[in-house]
């Protein structure tokens, strides 16, 4: 906005203001009505949903699927949407940072005097698209079980084997996501890319005994899982020891 446009705006604003109504009581009444709605909503939500707490934090038994508050789902969801693990940090931290900078500097690069949303097509479109993208990611985060389940086909050779081995395999596939492993590990496209290594082909580099040893006695920050019930422990180790390149390519 150049000087003329600024002055024109101030003049027009002065006219509109002089034709307006006093803050008290007109705006105070409207604001007051809305404040009653706001506080009423908080009271109602608290009455209906309360302030529940889960079981006490326990760094050694992760029976809880790590999930942030719903308004952080979109960050969480970026982890899953952006597939190649080498660029996920850029996405999960980079995208919100860039968005924040774009917002912060908005008045400095959008300098046109136009204020009507329909006559600011670029700004309005960008705003609507941002809202849609965030709504979509939030919805995905609420819908998708990630990382509470492993979304991978059972390799045909294991299906063919059937019986106890297949049952143990399926059990392990359930136990792993419900033990919080996917908070730190990625198996296939499931879970977080860090801080633990990708486990998609773990059996190619670590024998079954080595996996069991890692679970009992890991290096920090991975917690020890030696307190898992034996059946679950066995299932986890068994499942991981089937994760080979060979099995992956079968599918």
């Amino acid at each position, binding site marked *: *906005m150049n000087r003329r446009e*600024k002055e024109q705006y101030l003049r027009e*604003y002065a*006219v*509109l*203001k*002089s*034709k*307006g*109504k*006093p*803050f008290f009581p*007109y*705006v*105070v009444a409207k604001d007051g*009505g*809305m*404040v009653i709605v706001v*506080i009423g909503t*908080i009271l109602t*939500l*608290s*009455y209906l949903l309360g*302030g529940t*707490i889960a*079981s*006490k*934090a*326990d*760094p050694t038994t*992760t029976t*809880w699927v790590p*999930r*942030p*508050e719903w*308004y952080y789902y979109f*960050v*969480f969801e970026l*982890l899953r949407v952006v597939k190649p693990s080498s660029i*996920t*940090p850029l996405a999960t*931290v*980079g995208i919100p940072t860039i968005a*924040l900078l774009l*917002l912060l500097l908005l*008045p*400095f690069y*959008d300098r046109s*005097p136009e*204020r009507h*949303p329909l006559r*600011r097509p670029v700004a309005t479109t960008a*705003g609507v698209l941002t*809202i849609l993208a965030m709504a979509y990611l939030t919805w995905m985060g609420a819908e998708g079980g990630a990382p509470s389940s492993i979304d991978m086909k059972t390799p045909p050779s294991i299906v063919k084997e059937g019986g106890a081995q297949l049952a143990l395999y399926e059990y392990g596939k359930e136990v792993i996501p419900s033990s919080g492993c996917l*908070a*730190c590990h990625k198996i296939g496209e499931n879970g*977080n890319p860090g*801080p633990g290594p990708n486990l998609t082909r773990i059996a190619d580099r670590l024998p079954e005994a080595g996996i069991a040893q890692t679970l009992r006695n890991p290096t*920090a*920050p991975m917690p020890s899982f030696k307190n898992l019930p034996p059946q679950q422990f066995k299932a986890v180790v068994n499942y991981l020891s089937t994760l080979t390149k060979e099995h992956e390519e079968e599918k």
Partner: protein
Amino acid sequence: MLKLPSVPGATPPRPGTPAAEPKTKLDNAAEAATAALGWLDERTALSGTARFVMFRKVPKGTNWFYTLGTSTMFAFMSQVITGVILAMFYDPSPNRAYESMRYINNDVWAGQFVHGMHRWGATVMVIFIFLHMGRTFFFGAYKYPRELNWVIGVLLVLLVMIMAFTGYLLPWDQRAYWATAVGVNIFASAPIAGPYLGDFLRAGPDFGATTLSRFYSIHMLVLPGLIMGLIGAHLYLVIKHGTTAPPWVTAELDEELRSEEV
């Protein structure tokens, strides 16, 4: 310049007013109140400011979308009050945090209700701050002369989101612990500054005891102070510049003005 009406209470009762009716208790109370206000005003000279704030004109067309900022502020005030109450019982040590939350929920009178208000108030505040930001965005209210107010607003969004993040850990239950562990990991995976940020948030290499007390002091001392200061600056600028008129209300299109021109 705006001509202000005189302060009602500051002038002494006019001589010669009919003394017929005897003074009631109500009259005495009213007199005492105006005397007290007069005393305050004599020393602060705030009544002019108060009158300016309350009776300043608000442009034509101001609608319900303009209540979203005030709504955010009241949600924040609710958070402050419930937060202060929770802090009376909460103990930020890893051995006691969870038990103190249990105590608040089960034994403190209305404890779970206040806890619930704080939990859901956070959600409500996040919703309203985004609605308010959306309103000012689509109305073009961030343009001259209100750019600085927009910048302050974006900082407020950032602080409120960090507020929600740090508060989530405090109950020290499984949900809090694991969600925040993952959250910190995400921050720590950032390029360049990530590892330092991770160490700072965890208060050391491991996520644990020290993390909790660090989050607590950030959540209940550092951020509320910053947010209050910024809200103060925000409101000062709102009053100084006045709130915008909706962009579709323009002086040229105003019918009276047009008929004047003809």
